[in-house]
């Protein structure tokens, strides 16, 4: 089964319907049966739209385990002795449960992924009324039933959101285990954002309930020529193609402090002011795992039992990497010489990262989901080798793949955190952590990547 993508769907507005009346009546009966007090509070407050539209994405919050290099160890915290074979680190996380039946969905408890599924949304258009709906359920924490934590979805950076859809639990509501909530968005501002659970967010964010979301501009589909190259996909409504790209890759930054993760698994509390990042992650993995393949379910809108998740609803591991089953998102950048590649960076670690590309310049065309333009239109974009990305900050950059000059199948450029303690895996020597490769293929060469099917797709036939 394939669900609708972000461009379709959206509720039809109808007047008060029979269904709504029935719903109200039914709930009132329940109230009477439950205890006799008759507050309005138990009545679902329904809007004029009778049947809520189909959801575009269905996420579940739960706990689970991930894989990080077991050596060198950080006794007693890493690797965690409670971890299942091949895995090392206890996490909280989101899963995409779109397209699953109830049994499959409920079966994803204790099967969180890190980082969360990437998703993307078309800019809201009054004409098509393309609202985007994310249903969130809370499957509970298998290893820590004592916590009974609620979850929310906070779309970090969404402008002018009402508290009801902001996911900040003090100002609105949050979702306890076994319950559901649907967030409705009308994203009016293109750009790169991030999302996370905002309940106890010091803990839930660090434990892994974080991911990337971006908004595609209305300009997509138009044709603009810029720098001698014609584009149909863009980062922003630039009007001139200056943010056009051939391929796009999300680079979501997060961190793991082994002690805090161990503490959650072992019913302890960390002293957060002792925080440090033992591991720095790109899309939920450390180098060289970052260049391992995508899992089959990375496009959240293309879901099918048996292909993108198994019959029980569980994730299918990336080819050749069973240990990365719950870290499905690759960070390898594949491109062809001359192509313009968009890199979307967002950081939900707790430390500033210094992401550096050796050998090609990055043009910063957007920041915090805002094109680099002053109020009077002044172009404030700039080129750099290193992006200093603070916690909660996002950058949209473009790189142009240089000519392929080496003898191998591709030229390799390195993208890494210039804060070197976060581009290693604790071991001396060698790179690790927040690092990946950009591979540039010759144009027209056999083995060069084809068109990209979804963000972070390598463009090779499955």
């Amino acid at each position, binding site marked *: 089964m394939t669900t609708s993508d972000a461009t379709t769907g959206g509720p039809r507005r109808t007047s008060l319907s029979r269904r709504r009346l029935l719903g109200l009546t039914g709930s009132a009966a329940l109230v009477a049966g439950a205890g006799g007090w008759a507050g309005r509070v138990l009545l679902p407050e329904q809007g004029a739209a009778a049947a809520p539209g189909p959801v575009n994405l269905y996420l579940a919050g739960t706990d689970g385990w991930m894989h990080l290099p077991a050596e060198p160890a950080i006794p007693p915290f890493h690797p965690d002795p409670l971890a299942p074979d091949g895995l090392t680190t206890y996490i909280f996380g989101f899963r995409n449960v779109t397209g699953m039946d109830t049994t499959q969905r409920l079966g994803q408890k204790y099967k969180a992924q890190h980082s969360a599924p990437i998703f993307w949304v078309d800019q809201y258009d009054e004409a098509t009324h393309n609202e985007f709906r994310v249903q969130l359920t809370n499957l509970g924490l298998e290893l820590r039933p004592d916590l009974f934590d609620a979850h929310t979805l906070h779309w970090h950076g969404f402008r*002018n959101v009402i508290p009801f859809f902001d996911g900040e639990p003090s100002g609105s509501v949050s979702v306890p285990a076994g*319950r559901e909530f649907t967030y409705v968005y009308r994203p009016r501002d293109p750009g790169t954002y991030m999302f996370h659970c905002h309940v106890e967010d010091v803990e839930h964010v660090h434990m892994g309930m974080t991911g990337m979301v971006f908004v595609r501009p209305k300009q997509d589909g138009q044709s603009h020529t810029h720098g001698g190259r014609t584009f149909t996909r863009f980062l922003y409504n630039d009007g001139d193609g200056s943010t056009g790209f051939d391929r796009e890759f999300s680079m979501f930054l997060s961190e793991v402090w082994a002690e805090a993760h161990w503490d959650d698994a072992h019913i302890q509390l960390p002293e957060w002011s002792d925080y440090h990042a033992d591991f720095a992650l790109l899309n939920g993995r450390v180098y060289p795992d970052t260049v391992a393949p995508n899992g089959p379910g990375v496009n959240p809108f293309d879901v099918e039992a048996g292909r993108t998740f198994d019959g029980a609803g569980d994730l299918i591991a990336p080819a050749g990497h069973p240990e990365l089953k719950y870290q499905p998102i690759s960070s390898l950048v594949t491109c062809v010489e001359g192509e313009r590649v968009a890199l979307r960076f967002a950081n939900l670690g707790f430390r500033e990262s210094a992401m550096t590309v050796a050998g090609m310049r990055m043009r910063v065309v957007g920041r915090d989901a805002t094109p680099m333009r002053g109020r009077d239109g002044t172009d404030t974009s700039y080129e750099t080798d290193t992006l200093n990305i603070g916690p909660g900050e996002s950058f949209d950059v473009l790189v142009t793949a240089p000519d392929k000059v080496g003898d191998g199948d591709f030229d390799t450029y390195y993208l890494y955190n210039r804060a070197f303690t976060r581009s290693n895996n604790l071991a001396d020597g060698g790179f690790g952590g927040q690092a990946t490769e950009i591979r540039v293929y010759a144009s027209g060469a056999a083995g060069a990547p084809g068109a990209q099917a979804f963000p972070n797709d390598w463009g090779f036939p499955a």
Partner: protein
Amino acid sequence: MSTRFLTRRALRRGAVVAVGALVALGGAAATSVPAATAAAPPRNGIVCTTGGTEAGHPVFDLTTRTGYIDLPDGNTAFMWGFSNGFDAFQHPGPVLCVTEGDEVTVILHNTLDVATSIVFPGQEGVRADGVPSQPQVDAGSGMMTGLGQGAAPSTGTVSYTFTATHAGTFLYESGTDPETQVRMGLFGALIVRPAGHADQAYDAASSRFTASEEVMVLLSEIDPFQHAAVEQGKTFNLVNYKARYWLVNGRGYPDSIADNGASWLPSQPYGSLATVKPYDPATHPLPGLARYLSVGSEDYPFHPHGNNGLVVGRDGHPLTSETGQDLSMEKFAINIGPGQTWDVLYKWYDAEDYSPSNPVSVTVPSLANQVVGTFYSGSPYLGDTKELPPGVQTLNQCGEFYIISHNHALFQITSWGVNMTGPITYMRIEPPEPNTCA
């Protein structure tokens, strides 16, 4: 958990009161200079201290004091601070508000048992007792003793003067042993308003804001061991410095959203709750202004929910090019570095205008099936309230919205083990009038 340095809170409270009483008496006896005057503080927003009544020549007396502040985990911390005139200890120092072009005088009265001084980063031509304020070097040791001329221990006085030539937001802070003295609390904010345009951040009309929606976000941090060492007269190895508390306007959440001058925070007068009205092109077209300042040791990535701030100035410089091009930038992460100030216009507007008659297009689930937040009205809609399930309490008054803003280096929104405290505050959005808000 480490040994905490503090004894019972009740004892500390007693000490604060006693010290405050002595200070008040001493101050009354010593003063002959007209004290700077503070307007009656608004409940929310910036509390300006103005320097007397002579136009163009504000005069401030700042007296160094010692005292205690309350922290969100129940601890208190021993502090040093600048107080207004000869008042009792307060933290942080008074917000000095002047006008561009003013000839400003700040008279430092030192009561500490160490020498101290004040520097004014961003001000030019600062003079101390009539001569240029310059770094002081000990003739014997050759060591630098301060970034400017200081006031001797216990009774010293020094008078600083400068012309406030640039509009913007600035810090003032100790220039003597700053890694101890600034961290102990010897800092405050200086606001320079454009001449004739007190409702603008800078000279450009595009920086105009709504006066009642001007807020200060002054970020700082505390290593309790350093403060305990100072209190007990012991040495503190700065290599071991490690912040355990982070504060906004000298308070940690939830104290941060209490009113200015809240009675239970006698020495922490500045709240940081922003109370705003929704944007309306006819009745409420101007944004608010958040003046961010950091005296911390590392970047603080502050994140306001629900609106992107428009950064119109940094460090007292408007974001315009020399040829007048607009270089302002919208951001949802205000990554403020040590010693920086950022001026950020912000507004909230009801983009979708949701209401009971224009409802959200989704079934609103029963509140019994949700965890209800402390500030939630029970309804998704501005100005609307709903009855809450039995036993569920809310602080919501009239269907107003509360939208958070907080430091996003999330380990910094803790207080030595107490999560979800520290530099967190809210934007309170009032329903359109008429409303039932207090």
